[in-house]
């Protein structure tokens, strides 16, 4: 199906050359789009003049070098902010200053002028972050298929949806996702399961005519063709399984394995056949006996256990053209050597990003023609792939983890307090948010709808729960939401998973929004702090008790914003139903976000977020999508890619596809840093 692999190799240099030119163009465009960058020496002079003395005066007493609060030591920054490495830290420092959250209220406060000057100096450091210098696309460790990817890959490889990974141990999560290369370890128990799964899959596939036809594409016309046919079938399967062209040697090694087993197995003497080759017809005649050592079955079982199938591998330099190119790059004095991914690697990245599965024929064909790298092609593929039913994987795996919908299945609200909650309601909650996310993709809506949408999807059960009239039956349909529900933060699913079993938790809700939507995760509380006492209404409403609780200014630093967000949603109980009172207390949802952003109801809170936090929200979503798409945590250099994604998306009204399109043409998605950079 890939044609002769040699031709691919020969055209490879040309592709690489074009790709490098393309990247250079992109690069220039990006530099132009940036505001003028203040020279680093100026920013550093400003730092020494303004920031360092400010830190010494206001910050060292808590954030010095010894026993620093929040584990943040600022004393190490004397001459410069070291912005290329510490960008996120300074971003947080600036936010804390701007929002008057630091220094804490019980400490001497800087005056306005001081604050303004130091703010400008920190901003100058942030602005001096250099995206134009050396290209740092990062490096992804070889990535084991996770359970979802394994299931989908097998489905697309043999054409039958066996869900063979259902019994695999769960994949560990890092950076919020279970597809992070460094965290996906390969334990012995897993290898045991892979081997057993490969045997079962091949057995089942050969019993299913449709699946069998997908694997056994060629059949022998005569006895003489058997060897040749086997070789063709093996090559076709192994190329699709390994997601790339394979060398003759690789095919030969599979055939050698087949020969070795066929030559030595107990079968041989009994059946009196020494040639080790039987055609498809004979295989079908085999009938009752266990046929697992039929040549093609055996080959497929081995291929499905190989590291080339189980891992997505991007080598440093396996191909001749490429290593020459690298040598040239090294000679040109590049500090970090970088290579463009080849077309097959890009096809694989695209397919696992958008489908959690292997590339399909069209992607393979484009890769074989060497056309996949071109931006228009990539964009057309994104449109095609997002419209494909397989894009459901983004709902299950990306939304399931970004919005933490996967946790909904395991939560159990207290049945005495929340008798309305049952399995039917749980399923409906989950389905609402999944349908909503799917609609954002399908209709290519603005991602700002996550914050502000005035519609959603309900069935009768959920409509009752929300107080929406005239919805009958189990089918979900699109409805206009009641006045106070807007966006996914008011979906019952999210409200449930940010509550305790026995009550709402404004802190959890606030923290969830800050972390997942605004990218401002608050640090965890220090140990040993007092928590709220449940049920003790003699001390006042939940809000009054929490306000007493944060009389301590060092708690108030983080809690002010967290609690404001959470209390803004207090009209929704722990299972997301509307309420006007909590126990004997009326709910007061009013609050204020930093920058005098007042709101008096949940809908107003959502409006404030959609209008004032647009940049923070879209940035967070872009970071999450990029993390998921790359399978690695983001480093300081990735902010350049995120900036480019946001510019691109803003120009297209933040449509979902615009984010995805910008990601797939970004440097981290199309390039790879090499060994030396590790």
């Amino acid at each position: 199906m890939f044609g002769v692999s040699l031709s691919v190799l020969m055209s490879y240099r040309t592709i690489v050359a074009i790709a490098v030119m393309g990247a250079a163009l992109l690069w220039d465009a990006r530099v132009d789009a940036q505001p003028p960058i203040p020279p680093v020496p100026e920013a550093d002079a400003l730092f020494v003049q303004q920031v360092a003395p400010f830190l010494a005066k206001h910050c060292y007493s808590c954030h010095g070098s010894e026993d620093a609060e929040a584990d943040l030591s600022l004393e190490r920054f004397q001459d410069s902010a070291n912005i290329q490495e510490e960008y996120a830290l300074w971003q947080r420092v600036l936010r804390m200053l701007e929002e008057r959250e630091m220094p804490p209220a019980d400490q001497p406060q800087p005056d306005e002028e001081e604050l303004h000057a130091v703010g400008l100096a920190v901003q100058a450091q942030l602005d001096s972050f250099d995206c134009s210098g050396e290209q740092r696309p990062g490096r992804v460790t070889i990535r084991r298929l996770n359970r979802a990817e394994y299931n989908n890959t097998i489905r697309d490889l043999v054409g039958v949806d066996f869900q063979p990974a259902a019994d695999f141990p769960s994949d560990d999560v890092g950076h919020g996702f279970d597809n992070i290369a460094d965290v996906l370890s390969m334990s012995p128990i897993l290898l045991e399961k892979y081997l057993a799964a490969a045997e079962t899959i091949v057995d089942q596939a050969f019993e299913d005519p449709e699946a069998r036809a997908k694997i056994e594409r060629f059949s022998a016309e005569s006895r003489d063709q058997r060897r040749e046919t086997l070789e063709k079938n093996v090559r076709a399967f192994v190329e699709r399984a390994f997601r790339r062209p394979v060398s003759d040697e690789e095919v030969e090694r599979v055939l050698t394995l087949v020969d070795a087993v066929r030559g030595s197995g107990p079968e041989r003497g009994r059946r009196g056949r020494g040639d080790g080759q039987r055609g498809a017809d004979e295989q079908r005649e085999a009938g009752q006996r266990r046929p697992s050592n039929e040549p093609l079955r055996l080959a497929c079982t081995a291929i499905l256990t190989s590291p080339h199938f189980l891992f997505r591998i991007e080598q440093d330099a396996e191909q001749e053209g490429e290593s020459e190119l690298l040598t040239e790059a090294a000679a040109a004095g590049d500090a970090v050597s970088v290579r463009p991914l080849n077309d097959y690697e890009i096809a694989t990245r695209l397919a696992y990003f958008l489908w959690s599965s292997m590339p399909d024929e069209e992607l393979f064909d484009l890769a074989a023609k060497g056309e996949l790298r071109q931006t228009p092609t990539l964009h057309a593929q994104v449109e095609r792939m997002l419209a494909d039913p397989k894009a459901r994987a983004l709902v299950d795996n990306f939304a399931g983890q970004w919005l933490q919908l996967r946790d909904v299945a395991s939560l159990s609200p207290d049945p005495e307090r929340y008798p309305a909650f049952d399995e039917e309601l749980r399923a409906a909650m989950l389905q609402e948010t999944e349908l909503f996310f799917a609609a954002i993709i399908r209709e290519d809506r603005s991602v700002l709808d996550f914050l502000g949408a005035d519609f959603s999807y309900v069935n009768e059960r959920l409509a009752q729960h929300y107080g929406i009239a005239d919805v009958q039956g189990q089918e979900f349909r699109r409805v206009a939401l009641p006045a106070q529900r807007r966006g996914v933060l008011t979906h019952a699913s999210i409200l449930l998973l940010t509550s305790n079993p026995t009550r709402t938790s404004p802190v959890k809700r606030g923290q969830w929004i800050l972390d997942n939507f605004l990218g401002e995760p608050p640090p965890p509380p220090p140990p040993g702090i007092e928590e709220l006492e449940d049920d003790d209404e003699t001390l006042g409403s939940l809000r009054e008790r929490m306000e007493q609780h944060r009389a301590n200014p060092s708690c108030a630093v983080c809690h002010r914003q967290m609690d404001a967000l959470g209390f803004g949603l207090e009209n929704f109980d722990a299972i997301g139903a509307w309420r006007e009172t909590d126990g004997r207390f009326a709910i007061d949802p009013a609050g204020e976000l930093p920058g005098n952003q007042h709101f008096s109801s949940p809908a107003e809170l959502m409006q404030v977020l959609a209008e004032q936090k647009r940049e923070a929200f879209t940035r967070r979503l872009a970071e999450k999508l990029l993390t998921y798409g790359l399978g690695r945590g983001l480093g300081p250099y990735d902010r350049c890619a995120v900036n480019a994604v946001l510019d691109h998306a803003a120009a297209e009204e933040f449509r979902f596809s615009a984010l995805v399109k910008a990601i797939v043409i970004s440097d981290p998605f199309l390039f790879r840093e090499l060994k030396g950079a590790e």
Partner: protein
Amino acid sequence: MLTRPQVSRRTLLRGLGLTLALPTFDSLTPRMALGATSVAPAPGAAPRRMACIFVPNGVHVPDWIPSSTGFGYQLPYILEPLASVRDDMLILSGLTHDRGRANGDGPGDHARSASVFLTGAQPRKTDGSNIRSGISVDQLAAQQIGGATRLPSLELGCEAGRGAGNCDSGYSCAYSSNISWASESTPVGKEVNPRLAFERLFASGESGETRRSRQERIALRKSILDYVADDAERLQKQLGRSDQRKLDEYLSGVRQVERQIEHSEQESKQAAVEMDLPPGIPQEYADHLRLMLDMMVMAFQTDSTRIATMMFANAGSNRNYRHIGIPDGHHDLSHHAGDPVKHAKIREINRFHISQLAYFLQRLKAIPEGEGTLLDNCMILYGSGLSDGNRHNHENLPILLAGRGGGTIDSGRHVAYSTETPLCNLFLSMLDRMGAPAPYIGDSTGKLTGLQV
């Protein structure tokens, strides 16, 4: 419930619907015969087994530590369900996991409490890149003596790793949902489904399979493993360091499966196992725990493995305990701030866990082995990596050690150690008794004294 004397092995097993060939062992070797200093197993003696059980979120310490030391201590409230096995275990108070503390890494005590529990190693604070802990005590034992049984070790739990979100303050979920680490970068995945655990332990042959086809399947698997190992080795030469580490993991998986296959070849003369397959994951937590504990009992009894670990729940678990009248989440409760109502709920949860341990120990004790019982040949470590869930402290950990380690442990006592005694010292002493000595583990400073009188 299972303390009835003189129950035949067969009767017990049939009660579970299982028949299988049981190994026979020589009688328990009395300690005197070994000489006063050696605690290593003597050749021909019954094999020693070790299991390590983790519970999350610390305990209510005042109801855990007995008021007196030595023999004849009074069982505190939480430990009362252990009355029938009191003389078969040691309460070890005062032990510490210093590497569970922040030591400059800031918050994340829950994640650390699990990753440090059996490793004694400071986990690298990372949400994904370059996870690193240390080799755990069970895996150190398995790497030395695991070859003697079909499975070198068995890792069980009742909660799968979390499927989304952050686990604890910038620590990857790998740290909070695993206690067994095969290398400093490879957590050993655990099995949470009793049916799958059973299949892994006992269902090595397919039903109705003839000897010939079994041999054929074994030969086939070996060839496939040879082929893929060759693939991995070729590939490894072309990759960067962190990629190579992934292939190391892959290759050690291959080697372990090869060993298992070799064992099953040797076992081919054994009677086939017949038992009703356990169902999937039971609805009730208590049933789930008991099924997993049953798996460990059977694994030890049939000598399918000698080393097991079990997480009653993941670190920081917020599971509710409604079945014992506690609807609140465990982790939420553990931040009790001194509230007596929360204390009362926490100690009920602690006691519930202990009653499951009691079930496990009673079952081990009801199985005769040599002149004693299976429990006599075991070392069952049970405890939490946090002391008080509110303070998040890592000293004076709640730890107990059940079983007599093949006659090398004088059980029936409460031993109080001076503060800051490393828990890792106990691990070294356990490894000696397993016949898998190590020069050090984690922050160990020597062997733990006081296990014998």
